[in-house]
């Protein structure tokens, strides 16, 4: 009896193992066919029959929902079934959701790996019939990918932005007045001087987040990179162009400058424990002069501190130098196997071209809508910080200084490389040169791993 019991159990285990080990993983999972890029002869629409669109959006960003609500008002046959999640959750779920339960429209993280696995619809056909390829090329550059997802920056279009976000420096006008700063600094040296004055006046120069798995010092760091050097090599690195490196002399100057700010005590002492929400509440509470952040907060800051917040692009190292900024589309894509891909594409086109949609983009989103160069731009009162961020967006286009976020170079580079390295820099446990070398090494190994 005892022997039979044991052999029975062994049999069950063996069967379980066998059942599991039949085929290599991934070989039997549904592989969406590579989508063709042939242009439809006429521009697709949402038709007139009732249709339910499946959306997968990001929690905390009211813009997409405001747009879908307006869209339903204008096209009553279209209703939206929207699921929302935190960005981190979307990032982790994106491949499985796109493969198993393809939404029509989805907020996307970094898209290279999704394209590699054939999970996203190629939008070249839509771009042709809707005329997206006649928009300023820089708007769509970050959403173009080569075959197999690499490199980015050229090739077929795989996603579109609802608008284009950009980072820079927000400053508290009341605190600025206290240290005699009446206009935003025009050079990096002036910015340094303003921080020094603030520190001496007992004002925290910079409120920033750098805790957990999201190193917020990447914002000022990339701004410093933009200040010291040209944007193009950084973009090449983010776009995974062969041979690109982040370990360049001008980037080293940027990290060294950031280290000087840290050592001078311009950040709060507990910056490694501060998360994004804490940073926002501290800035709104007037606990610091500067905050490196993006124009997605313009609308919010106009509401919370009306008239008291200014915005400026990162000043160049030399006076009159070119300006650059982290600027990226609020990326949305269509699943390769989406049921209503045509209607989703029609919606994306509507967001960029409809007058009311563009107004919502500015009022709710706080950023420049994407679209043709001569498209309608809504008026914003001059004292609003939104007006300042919109103007800055125009400057960036003029200087061709848009860069994607250095944290988007690979799927894991932010949480597993930039963040721990920047946290070590704050704690004095990492030197600038070694920081760049370490990030470059992680980058290389992550590219090999994919």
């Amino acid at each position: 009896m005892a022997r039979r019991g044991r052999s029975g159990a062994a049999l069950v285990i063996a069967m379980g193992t066998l059942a599991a080990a039949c085929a290599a993983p991934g070989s039997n999972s549904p592989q969406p066919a590579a989508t063709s890029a042939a242009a439809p002869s006429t521009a697709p629409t949402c038709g007139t029959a009732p249709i339910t669109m499946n959306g997968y959006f990001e929690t905390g960003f009211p813009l997409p929902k405001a747009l879908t609500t307006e869209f339903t008002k204008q096209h009553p046959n279209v209703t939206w079934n929207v699921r929302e999640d935190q960005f981190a959750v979307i990032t982790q779920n994106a491949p499985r959701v796109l493969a198993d339960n393809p939404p029509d429209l989805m907020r996307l993280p970094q898209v290279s790996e999704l394209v590699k696995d054939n999970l996203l619809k190629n939008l070249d056909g839509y771009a042709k019939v809707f005329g997206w390829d006649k928009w300023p090329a820089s708007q769509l550059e970050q959403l173009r990918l080569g075959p197999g997802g690499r490199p980015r920056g050229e090739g077929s279009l795989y996603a579109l932005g609802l608008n284009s976000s950009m980072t820079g420096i927000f400053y508290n006008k009341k605190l600025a007045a206290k240290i005699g700063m009446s206009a935003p600094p025009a050079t990096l040296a002036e910015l340094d001087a303003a921080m020094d004055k603030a520190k001496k006046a007992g004002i925290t120069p910079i409120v920033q987040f750098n805790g957990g798995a999201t190193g917020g010092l990447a914002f000022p760091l990339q701004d410093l990179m933009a200040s010291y050097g040209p944007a193009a090599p950084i973009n090449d690195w983010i776009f995974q162009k062969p041979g690109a490196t982040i370990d360049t002399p001008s980037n080293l100057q940027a990290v060294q400058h950031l280290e000087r700010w840290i050592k001078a005590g311009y950040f709060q002492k507990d910056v490694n424990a501060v998360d994004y929400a804490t940073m926002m509440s501290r800035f709104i509470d007037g606990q610091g002069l500067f905050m490196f952040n993006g124009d997605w907060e313009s609308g919010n800051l106009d509401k919370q501190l009306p008239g008291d917040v200014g915005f400026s692009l990162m000043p160049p190292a030399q006076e009159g130098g070119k300006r650059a900024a982290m600027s990226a589309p609020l990326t949305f894509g269509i699943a390769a196997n989406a049921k209503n891909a045509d209607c989703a594409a029609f919606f994306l086109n509507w967001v960029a071209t409809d007058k009311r949609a563009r107004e919502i983009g500015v009022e709710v989103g706080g950023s420049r809508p994407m679209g043709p160069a001569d498209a309608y731009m809504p008026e914003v009162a001059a004292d609003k910080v939104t007006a300042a961020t919109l103007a800055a967006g125009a400057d960036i286009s003029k200087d061709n200084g848009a860069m994607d976020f250095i944290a988007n170079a690979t799927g894991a580079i932010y949480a597993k490389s930039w963040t721990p390295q920047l946290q070590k820099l704050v704690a004095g446990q990492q030197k600038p040169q070694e920081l760049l070398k370490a990030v470059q090494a992680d980058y290389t190994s992550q590219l090999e791993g994919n």
Partner: protein
Amino acid sequence: MTRPAGARASHRRPVAARLRGARGLVGWLFVAPALAFYAVFVLRPIALTFQYSLYEWDGIGPSTWVGLANFGKVFTDPDLYDSLINAVKLIVFFSAIPVLLGLAIAATIRRIAESRLALVARTVLFLPQVIPLVAAGIAWSWLLASTGVINQLLSLVGLGGITRAWLGDFSTALPAVGMIGAWVLLGLCTLLLLAGMSKIDPALYEAARLDGAGPWREFVSITVPSLRQEIAVCVTVTVIAALASFDIIYISTQGGPGNTTMVPGLQIYYLAFSEREVGMASALALVLMVLVIACALPIQWFTKEGER
């Protein structure tokens, strides 16, 4: 079974065997549902994890056979084995503190068992057990923040010099998450040990007291030896909690700053879902499983040995 000799035995045997066989079948029928569940939801995933660990796979696309290379990386990549070392360090906080402190508290509560204070103490101590770990993690990250209650109290008693962002400091982050774990597990240990103490024959204590034993001698010579089983359970549960920790750390530090609080559970999650290295994640998961078993089995074995 020894071979029966003669015809008498050969008459009896089929009946007995049939009876045994039927009884065995009924037994299997009773076990079958649980066994099926166990096979599908425990054994199969383990087998699948082992299978995945032999491939390089992003979770969606085609996979590449790499043999045992993933296991090699677990022990050579400093990021990965550092997380294993962190988990071992956490045992001090998750296991040693709750068990030792739990013993002391349980002994104290037992001595004041009749008073209302004992009831209050028991309830308060057990409270962390009914709070979701995520809520505990959030509450503690507020308490430990640079402007949190802990630092306010320290400043109040004149220790303002040592205040810091406990979870954001390289030297204190791991002990700080360890203390959260200790706080959560202390109640469980105390209650288990208290239950064990209530089973000890009071006559033993009486005899000891007649022999002139003080509270300390009672504790060392009667209480602790009688609680061997309960202590073993506490140690096993808390050691496993330390090695398999995830939620508290995910909520309070996400493995930071640097990688000072990175533990295997979190590392597996990052590998599988942000780095999309399902093979590596599976290999690390198996190593963690073996480590847990390697730590838990000797504890069981040791306490059983002692009983003999």
